[in-house]
């Protein structure tokens, strides 16, 4: 007989795995750096957190650690992807030609050349 928490954990891990796979798929299929970053951060962060919590639920002794892992993933992943996107934009990586909006450019214009829109 499998305990109920283990089933919940398994389901969470399966969901996480699904998002990981989708993220990896997006990393290959999407057209440019910025789109790929979407896949690499949003869906993979969600997937990783889901797996971490799933492990914690299935094995309750690991729950505190899993929560800490999830917290730091949530803290660091967006910051770093923000940094990467900004660095890519600043060093002149072009947008995909099908992109419809470039708000960062407008913000740069508003704050003057070389300045930093906060």
């Amino acid at each position, binding site marked *: 007989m499998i305990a109920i928490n283990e089933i919940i954990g398994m389901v969470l891990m399966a969901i996480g795995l699904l998002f990981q796979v989708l993220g990896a798929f997006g990393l290959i299929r999407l057209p440019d750096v910025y789109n790929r970053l979407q896949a690499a951060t949003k869906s993979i962060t969600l997937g990783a957190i889901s797996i971490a919590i799933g492990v914690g639920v299935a094995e309750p002794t690991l729950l505190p650690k899993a929560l800490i892992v999830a917290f*730091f993933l949530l*803290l*660091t992943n967006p*910051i770093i992807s*923000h*940094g990467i996107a*900004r660095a890519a934009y*600043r060093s002149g990586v072009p947008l995909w030609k099908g992109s419809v909006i470039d708000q960062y450019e407008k913000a740069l214009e508003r704050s003057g050349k*070389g300045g*930093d829109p*906060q």
Partner: protein
Amino acid sequence: MMERSTIQRSLPALAISILIAGTLFLAFVEIGFGENKVDSEDAVANRYIANGTTETGSSNLVTSVVVNYRGFDTLGEVTVLFLAATGVGAMINLLPEDGKKRSKGPKPSLIMTQGGMLAIPVIALFGTYVFLHGHLSPGGGFQGGVIIATAFLLYLIAKPDAKTSHRTLSLSESLAGLSFIGIGLIGLAVSGIFLDNVIEGFGVLGELVSGGLLPLIYIAIGIKVGSEMSGLVEKMRGDAS
């Protein structure tokens, strides 16, 4: 469409790689996977598993192998890292100018600076924890050192203009390396054996203060690896600015 010369090169390369990998694969299948070889008296690992905790006082058996049974390897490993750091620094100095002017990039954004500053102390603390508990939990000097160096890297990303002291880095690197060898020489002086764990019976198994000289060596390694990796990062920044 591949060029003709690419194909000409690829096919022999494919043949050679399949030959080597295939031979190794068949040989490893012959050895077997997951079979229990460590229980036989002939295996060296048998002694590590059966007596490792009592002989070295460390509950992490990998640590007892790395620092005690095969400590000489670890000294070589630290040396490899030292050579790589020195060598990369020297080679970066040797690099020819590429004629490009590098302008200073824009300041990092608020998110980057604040988020980085939030994470750095936690990361540094965690790195210290990892190398202090190398004899109790997974991890050790190398891992802890690398974690500390990531904190340093994050600091440089968050504040690219920050001044770092090259002097302090190379001083701590040298002193940590010398203290590693010094601990080894204590063994040579006391019992005539280099890197002998002369106070191994000290402390209670599983507590922080245990394992004799083992945690001391891992602290030295942690500081050395941390400052070496930080130095590596710093040298690479020196090239880019």
